[in-house]
């Protein structure tokens, strides 16, 4: 899968957080979250700007020509404007043909999985051949300065993923889930992000086991067939607990958000790009992807490398 990502230049490290929240230590933040620094968008830097840079990096590093793309989709909950659609702005900025389709969709931590499913659907139905899937968030703009728990976890960033016919063929069946009764658990109201950490944590512990089971059944696989689990990188503590509760082997369960934090819909593509750069992805491997969070919304699939 061809993927590139971009992070804003400004870095917020644990030393800076400890200066503001005096009763925490750098070690404690690192131990619990697995995050040592996160990137924060500048006041004049939008999710659309980050998405544009991620796409340009994809074009440059992976040899993707913008005029070869016939569809663009942007997953964001921090659009540049209420209207027009940010994906339309990006069509122009990135030089995609005016014959290309473009749309935004509003999902958070499950967004990359849903993006893969929509892109696969468009390719398999013959409606599009080469899709640019962009995920971009600037959650830090929603975080009140005194809200240390979300400020510690979330970082801004964007990822660009190419889904063409060859890629779509390697994306397996999907498992989806939605529970809007939990809408208030993670919500932006009056411009400010509010998170019910304990309930989000419980929700995740509830849905991960049954979603794992469902996606395995739908792909005719058993747990032993999975070479790697790449789940939404919410925070290290949550991932460690998920791994323990589900009895997953540590060496097959990816955790890396040290310098990015939780970038919402971009954590999975960023993880896949890091794994590729580290030489940990080999042809034929089966990788389970799962996203879960705001909505509440979740989804999973299995890709073949």
């Amino acid at each position, binding site marked *: 899968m061809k993927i590139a990502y971009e992070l804003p230049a400004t870095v917020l490290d644990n030393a800076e957080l400890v200066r503001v929240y005096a*009763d925490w230590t750098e070690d404690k933040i690192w131990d619990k979250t697995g995050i040592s620094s996160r990137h924060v968008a500048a006041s004049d830097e939008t999710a659309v700007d980050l998405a544009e840079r991620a796409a340009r990096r994809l074009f440059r590093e992976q040899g993707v020509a913008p005029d070869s793309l016939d569809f663009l989709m942007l997953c964001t909950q921090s659009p540049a404007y209420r209207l027009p659609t940010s994906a339309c702005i990006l069509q122009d900025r990135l030089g995609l043909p005016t014959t290309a389709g473009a749309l935004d969709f509003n999902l958070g931590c499950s967004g990359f999985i849903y993006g893969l499913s929509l892109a696969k659907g468009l390719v398999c139905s013959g409606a599009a051949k080469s899709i640019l899937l962009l995920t971009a968030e600037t959650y830090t703009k929603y975080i009140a300065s005194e809200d240390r*728990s979300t400020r510690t976890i979330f970082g801004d960033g964007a990822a660009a993923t190419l889904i063409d016919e060859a890629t779509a063929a390697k994306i397996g069946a999907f498992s989806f889930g939605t529970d809007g009764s939990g809408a208030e658990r993670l919500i932006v109201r009056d411009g400010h992000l509010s998170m019910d950490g*304990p309930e989000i944590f*419980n929700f995740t*512990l509830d849905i991960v086991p049954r979603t794992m089971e469902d996606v395995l059944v739908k792909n005719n696989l058993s747990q032993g067939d999975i070479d790697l689990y790449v789940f939404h990188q919410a925070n290290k*503590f949550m991932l460690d*607990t998920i791994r*323990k509760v589900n009895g997953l082997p540590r060496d097959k369960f990816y955790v890396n958000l040290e310098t990015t934090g939780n970038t919402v819909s971009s954590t999975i593509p960023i993880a896949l790009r890091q794994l590729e750069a580290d030489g940990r992805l080999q042809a034929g491997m089966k990788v389970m992807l799962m996203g879960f969070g705001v909505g509440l919304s979740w989804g999973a699939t299995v890709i073949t490398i």
Partner: protein
Amino acid sequence: MTQDEKIDTLAEIFDRDVAELRPDVELDEIGWDSMAMLSVIAMAKTRFNKKITGAQIREFKTVQDILNVME
């Protein structure tokens, strides 16, 4: 798990000395923040297979309230 083992477990979670974790100690005095709450929920789930809801954990006032779920 004995009472001493439970207190040891809590000492780890709160990063405090066992002497500070008497059952009647108020949680607010030993750093009852969002991270501590998540740690207690995870501990109850992984070691006792018990679910503590967000509403329940916000009702916890003393160390004894946590000890009560460690059964």
